[in-house]
């Protein structure tokens, strides 16, 4: 609390991004965990909640006649433009947020104060929901070729690896340790995924310390052991996911890539995915395009192209497709690495696994996949997503790209995934929010030292509890296209990749489709289920009636009952919709404020269904709550998750459109 220079500023204006003339007047609050803006408008009292850990940048702009503008950009792509009347207040808010958004120790993060009112047992059970031991069993391990190794117990060999790892049976501890000394950060080749249909596997590691000519017998033996663990193939692919030039440059630093001459029966392959710095800049450029005010179609498309973002997404997907095909069609095992083997390698291994195994396309399976390839294998969540104040050059949207790859696949295969887009968006949100402990730290070792499981809650349990919200009604587990490996077109073409407005413009509801097919179908499904239950109940009653021979009048009274459920009234399906500014710069209609009477009513389809556990999506739900509530929502006494970036947003009906 000592970092809050001013807890409350009144008469602050929140500027609407789409039409800058629209601004809401309200009060700004700073708490230990959130920035909260509460609108004055008495009928709405709309609240916007921003978690400090979601804040990416804060920009104080030059003071104007109306006040001092403060721009807050969030990691979940929310953009807040505030105008604070007094320069001094603005400066205080600015300084407070700069500090609050950059905690220096883990204990400052929200997950250590977040208390969803679960007892100890429930919390512990939550952590047990995702069990990697079970996952390797599901793959069919251990077996004749692969065994669980204890070589990394207490993180003795590699401190960024998990303690439990699967390695080929023929790889002795001596080989593993030898190999680890020949790999960056001692990240030796270990199993990521085993394809039980044909014994082929996906293994991962960091780059070898080969320099220009160095060799390591144990490392060569390690790769041979991987090959031998797959009797169906006499070679393995070694996939270096870096551009060749980058890999070659690493040789000068004593690192590099495998020399085919030194390893028996490997096929070496570069797949050029750019490094974290290129990706960070690319996202930055794409977000600048998203921020453009009323861009023309070509401004937008050229900007998107210049950002290179979709090209990078395609490169990751292509790498995943290459590996999935090598495994499923050629029956060959693949060793994947990049430099340290925790960014591009994680992306590519998880995309390939997702393509190969329908289990990872289920809700729980997807959590397992992230737990396995990202969390357990030491993806540096803290550095990449800037949970603690650190080197800004370490920050990069690595897992965001993976999540987008999944979305691109969902768009291509609408029936292949058990979960929907909202699930991906919420996971992205949790990765940055630090509301749960799963995505903290840079390695399993660090998390263990911090006693994360004893001190925080698991987001997987939270997501699982609310799984009804995340189901894809079109999922067809039994369909020929969705069973087994996904059948991708032989030539994946560029135009199947789309801009993901649902993620990068997610807080601009006006840009999103106004009606949700997913929500509608889920409601229909729920409705028919209810009807079926009622039908069954009626059937039972009918039997009873027949038995007891009740008199008719009573029966007549009952028959009208079911009708209250049937059908969806039109008003339930109409969505908040108001016209935008279509007039452009043309001086058009005289400014005549539209009469209040004929405004479209803002009614949301599944208001009831969306008792959103994650209020960022309840932007549509018109929950009202006053400032009085704030005290009970403060993290210390927090009863329910005030949660990440809630913007309890009553879609305003104002038709601010035509201005002269």
């Amino acid at each position, binding site marked *: 609390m000592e970092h809050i220079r001013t807890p409350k500023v009144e008469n602050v204006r929140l500027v609407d991004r*789409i039409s800058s003339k629209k601004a809401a007047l309200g009060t700004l609050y700073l708490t230990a965990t959130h920035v909260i803006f509460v609108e004055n408008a008495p009928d709405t009292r709309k609240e916007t909640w921003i978690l400090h850990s979601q804040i990416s940048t804060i920009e104080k702009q030059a003071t104007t006649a109306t006040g001092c503008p403060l721009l807050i950009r969030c990691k979940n792509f929310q953009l807040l433009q505030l105008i604070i009347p007094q320069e001094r207040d603005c400066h205080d808010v600015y300084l407070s947020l700069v500090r609050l958004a950059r905690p220096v120790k883990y204990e400052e993060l929200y997950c250590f104060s977040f208390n969803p009112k679960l007892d100890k047992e429930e919390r512990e059970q939550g952590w047990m929901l995702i069990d990697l031991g079970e996952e390797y069993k599901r793959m069919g391990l251990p077996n004749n070729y692969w065994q669980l190794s204890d070589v990394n117990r207490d993180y003795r060999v590699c401190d960024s690896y998990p303690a439990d790892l699967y390695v080929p049976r023929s790889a002795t501890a001596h080989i593993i340790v030898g190999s680890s000394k020949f790999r960056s950060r001692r990240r030796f080749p270990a199993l990521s995924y085993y394809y039980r249909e044909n014994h082929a596997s996906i293994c991962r590691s960091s780059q070898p310390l080969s320099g220009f000519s160095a060799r390591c017998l144990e490392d060569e033996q390690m790769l041979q052991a991987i090959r031998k663990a797959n009797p169906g193939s006499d070679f393995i692919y070694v996939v270096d996911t870096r551009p060749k030039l980058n890999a070659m440059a690493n040789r000068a630093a004593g690192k590099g890539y495998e020399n085919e001459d030194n390893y028996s029966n490997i096929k070496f392959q570069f797949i050029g995915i750019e490094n974290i710095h290129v990706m960070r800049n690319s996202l930055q450029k794409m977000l600048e395009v*998203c921020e453009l005010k009323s*861009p023309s*179609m*070509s401004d*937008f*498309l*050229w900007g998107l*192209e210049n950002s290179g973002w*979709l090209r990078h997404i*395609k490169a990751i997907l292509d790498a995943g497709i290459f590996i999935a095909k090598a495994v499923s069609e050629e029956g060959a095992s693949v060793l994947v690495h990049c430099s340290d083997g925790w960014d591009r390698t994680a992306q590519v291994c998880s995309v390939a696994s997702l393509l190969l195994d329908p289990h990872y396309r289920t809700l729980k399976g997807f959590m397992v996949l992230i737990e396995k390839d990202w969390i357990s294998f030491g993806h540096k969540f803290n550095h990449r997503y800037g949970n603690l104040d650190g080197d800004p050059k370490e920050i990069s949207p690595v897992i965001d790209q993976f999540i987008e790859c999944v979305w691109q696949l969902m768009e*291509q295969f609408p*029936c*292949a995934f058990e979960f929907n887009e909202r699930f991906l968006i919420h996971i992205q949100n949790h990765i940055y929010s630090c509301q749960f402990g799963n995505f903290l730290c840079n390695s399993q070792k660090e998390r263990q030292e911090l006693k994360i499981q004893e001190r925080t809650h698991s987001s997987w349990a939270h997501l699982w509890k609310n799984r009804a919200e995340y189901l894809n*009604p*079109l999922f067809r587990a039994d369909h020929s*296209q*969705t069973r087994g490996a996904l059948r991708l077109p032989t*030539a994946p*073409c*560029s*135009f*199947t990749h*789309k801009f993901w407005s649902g993620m990068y*413009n997610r807080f601009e509801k006006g*840009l*999103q*489709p*106004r009606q949700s*097919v997913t929500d*509608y*179908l889920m409601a229909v*499904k729920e*409705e*028919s289920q209810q*009807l*079926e239950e009622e*039908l069954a109940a*009626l*059937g039972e009653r009918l039997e009873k009636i027949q038995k007891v021979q009740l008199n*008719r009048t009573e*029966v007549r009274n009952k*028959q009208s009952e079911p009708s209250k459920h*049937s059908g969806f009234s*039109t008003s339930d399906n*109409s969505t908040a919709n*108001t*016209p*935008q500014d*279509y*007039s*452009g710069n*043309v001086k*058009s*209609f005289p400014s005549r404020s*539209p009469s209040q009477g004929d405004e*479209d009513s803002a009614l949301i389809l599944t208001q009831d269904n969306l008792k959103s556990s994650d209020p960022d999506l309840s932007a549509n739900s018109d929950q009202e709550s006053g400032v009085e509530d704030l005290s009970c929502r403060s993290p210390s006494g927090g009863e329910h998750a005030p949660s990440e970036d809630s913007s309890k947003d009553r879609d305003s009906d104002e*038709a601010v*459109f*035509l201005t002269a």
Partner: protein
Amino acid sequence: MEFSELIRTGQAQAELLRGPEAPPLRGTLCVTGHHLLLSPGPQATPDLWLLLLRSVDSIEKRVAGDCGTITLRCKDLRVLQLDIEGVEATLNIARSIEALSSLESVITSFPFFYRPKGLRLGDAWHFHPPERYYKRVAREVLLRSSQPLIGPQKRRCAEDEALLRAVLAGSRPGARGFIVDTRSAQTAKQARMTGGGTEAKAAYPGWKRLHRPLERGRPLQESFVHLVEACGDLEQSMDHWLSRLAGCRWLAHVKEALSTACLAAQGMEREGACILVHGAEGTDSTLVVTSLAQLILDPSSRTMAGFQELVEREWIQAGHPFQLRCAHSAFSHARPKHEAPTFLLFLDCVWQLGRQFPLSLEFGEGMLLALFDHAYASPFGTFLCNSEQERCLCEVRTRTHSLWSGLNQLKEQRKLRNPLYVPNPLALWPSVEPQSLRLWQGLFLRWTRPPEPSEAAWEKVWQIVTDQEKTEGSQPTVSASELQL
């Protein structure tokens, strides 16, 4: 004229390749007056493959050794390849297709011979008399016209001025009018040199003019051609694709058309104004604007029947010259004369509206695709000719079948209807920001992407919705049996 004169070789053995996803077909190829047929041998599937010759947009032939290859690019954007035995046969078949696919005579076209089972001539030709969209409560009207003939002398016309005065007088007291000219102010002014022009402010009190230039004619056709070209290039890199998409400007045209329609609709709905839309002739971009504005405002035009009526009234009866505009699609090598994908632009805008409001249109993407296909080549007579007058002369209504009767058959419904439809009484205000507009993959990539994933999704949607109907439908039986106790 006899078709037989144009058919040089009736038959040949051939293999048909229908793109990367469909298996090849082998059999006997046969050219008839209106069709290309491929009948597989008796051992193969009994299905006859049939192509309306009218739907061939361009034809390319190559010969090598003793066989030849014909590539047919169709108006529905399909690309077909025929490998034919015999050089002579290949060349003859190619020439026959060329001649028969470009016949200009309307009354010898296939709709005049098409007599499908189950349909009666004369059905579904009669709609309500044409009337503009009229909002009964608010009394604002949407009108369309062609440009006024001002000319270089700045002529005025008392009757025309009186007509527009009367429009305002018939509306709410004090109502204002807006004239949406779909040309730039400069183009509209230049039109005076050729006898046209636009309404002078002084001559039409109460009316205010807005210029919203929409692309039309040859530039629009070229935009379409470039987009289809880009969509056919499967090898291009990601970056190349986005710049080509930007370069062909199709989505920019969609954005402009949709926002102009929104502006007109908003003027009526929010400002209570009367709106007059025109460009030059009032038969192209004017219709895009007026028909879209009605979809935005009028829930009844979003039903299956209402939409058909809208197309009939705002496009066919309004005199959009389909015969000229849709003579060729995107593949023709000939320099475009009168071709322009104005109607496709409208369909694309409707698709965008449907994507943003997936529950509010009773018809689905299948309906829009069908309209596109039939506008360019059809066994039905609905899109024949350029105007009502021509259709009368050719007796289209009595001698051909109406597309609507074909589409309204029960067997077509699953393809054409939107199972998610729930009537929505409100206006649909779409977002016209670039982030909200997408390439219509279902049309432009229809033949290049594998169809199975979206078919599987469509099936599932239908299944969920009909499951619900089944449960709902089964309830009265329970009630009925209860009554019989």
